[in-house]
């Protein structure tokens, strides 16, 4: 449905988006993830034909954003970061206006206006002025205008930003609900949001593509192996790292052991289990039975959050781990 190829967008002095490529299949919800200033909004603006790309191509439903922008615009519903509302308009009046802009007329227009009011739960503010609505309602009116012409593709720029937790949940449910009929790209810097609503993730940082993969794969990558941190101490204040490491490596199911830190009578190890093995109990037993103290043992299971941080913190061009992730997703 959406194909982006080596998309680059340069501003006067900065490159906001640098050679990004990804694809989105029909009916999917894709999470567009990245820290603030990563280039999410810019990419979305290119897709909605608001900004032209500096180089590279983007096509939506088979239409190029540069060559046939009107065709692309007909098929896209867009909710920018702050909902584009006119404060002096009433809710229904505004939706009618947007509907007309998108080419709806007559009874069809009325039908759609009523439908999106129901769908986005804004029927109770139908006759209020938009300027008087709360942030949550404004956001939902924004969503309503995006879906009014029943577009193939929905592009939502941080749809839950600035909402309270209850509204966030409602908005997420609404988005999930919409997924069947529309292909959705939503940008966010909130990870649980992606875990909860999206099937696929595109992670970008500083304008560069860091990873694109399905949420499940990324989670599997993160959680397949158990990762444990343990701190071992000794009573007499002397501690030899190699024998402990050896002992830990011998515990069945342990994959890799590395000593992270050693401070007088204590040593901290990071241990990764083999895929699908739980090793915490055995580790504890091994340490205690060998006469050492077990000061601390905690799981360091990587959440999507950590994958994300790991991927985005090390900046610069795609290096080994990132490249691996990016490549896998294409295969």
């Amino acid at each position, binding site marked *: 449905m959406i194909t982006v190829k080596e998309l680059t967008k340069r*501003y*006067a002095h900065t490159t906001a988006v640098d050679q990004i490529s990804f694809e989105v299949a029909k009916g999917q919800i894709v999470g567009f993830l990245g820290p603030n200033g990563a280039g999410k909004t810019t990419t979305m*603006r290119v897709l*909605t*034909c*608001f*900004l*032209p790309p500096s180089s590279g191509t983007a096509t939506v439903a088979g239409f190029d954003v540069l060559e046939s922008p*009107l*065709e692309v*615009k*007909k098929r*896209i519903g*867009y909710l*920018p*970061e*702050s909902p*584009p*509302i*006119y*404060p*002096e*308009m009433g809710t229904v*009046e505004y939706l009618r*206006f*947007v509907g*007309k*802009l*998108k*080419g709806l007329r007559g009874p069809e227009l009325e039908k759609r206006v009523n439908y999106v009011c129901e769908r986005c739960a804004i029927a109770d503010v139908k006759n209020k002025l938009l300027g008087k609505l709360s942030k949550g309602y404004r956001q939902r009116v924004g969503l309503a*205008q995006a879906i009014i012409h029943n577009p193939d593709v929905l592009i939502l720029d941080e749809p839950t930003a600035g909402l309270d937790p209850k509204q966030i949940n409602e908005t997420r449910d609404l988005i999930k609900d919409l997924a069947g009929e529309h292909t959705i790209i939503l940008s966010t810097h909130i990870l649980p949001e992606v875990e909860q609503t999206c099937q696929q993730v595109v992670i970008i940082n500083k304008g560069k593509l860091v990873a694109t993969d399905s949420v499940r794969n990324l989670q599997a990558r993160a959680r397949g192996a158990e990762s444990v941190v343990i701190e071992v101490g000794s009573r007499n204040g002397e501690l030899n790292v190699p024998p402990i490491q050896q002992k830990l490596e011998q515990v069945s199911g342990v994959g890799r052991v590395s000593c992270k830190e050693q401070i007088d009578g204590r040593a901290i190890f990071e241990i990764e289990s083999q895929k699908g093995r739980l090793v915490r109990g055995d580790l504890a037993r091994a340490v205690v039975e060998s006469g050492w103290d077990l000061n601390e043992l905690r799981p360091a299971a990587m959440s999507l959050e950590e994958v994300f941080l790991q991927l985005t913190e090390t900046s610069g061009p795609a290096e080994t781990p990132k490249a691996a992730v990016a490549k896998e997703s294409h295969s």
Partner: protein
Amino acid sequence: MRNAWIICQKEMRSYFASPIAYLLLTMFALVFGIFFWNMLGLFALEGIEMQMSGQAFPMNVNEQVIRPILSNVGVLSLFFVPMITMRLFAEEKRTGTIELLATSPITDVEIIVGKWFAAMILYSCLLFFTAVNFAFLFNYGNPDWKPLAVGYLGLLLQAGALLAIGTFISTLTKNQIIAGAATFGVCLMLWVVGWVRGYETATWAQVLSYISVITHFQSFTKGVIELKDAIFYISVIFLGLFLTSRSMESLRWRS
């Protein structure tokens, strides 16, 4: 052009849903009323003086009342145009609603024409209410209506040109006050550059005088449609709207 009409309706709605339209209508009607009152007073005084002195010069309502009023209103509109156009694009840029328009399946030209036309309608409304004054004139006097109609046509053309320039300037900034002030400055310049004609006859002075919007208005106040003056205004309208569309496109490349 159906889309342009949708935009136009929306703009009309925001003029008349806010106090802007009513404020402008009131101020315009008041100032116009004072012009009318003054000119009529002068006219009456002259008539009395002439009777007293026993001389009988021909007196003409068209020449002595309508024409000076039209000239004044031509200048008056320089002050009102910025207030009409300053919000057109600046406001949409500030609130981000420009993104909605720019990502809807309509062309830039439709957006621009719609907005400009809404401004024209508002200006026409301002003019419409001044007709009350002339209704009195027609009731008690016997003026020729044709020069008056030509004068109003001239006012509309002149305003169309200035509104197009104002629309263009409004695309250059997010700040309404800057848009308004800049438009006002340009309008004033387009008026006063014509003054050099008074003491200088060199070519550059003639050029300056030619680009003055007020110079071209003089023929209309006389009740004459000069083709070159009409064409001047129409070209400025097209130039202004063309610049607006260029500016909108460059927004996309720059922003």
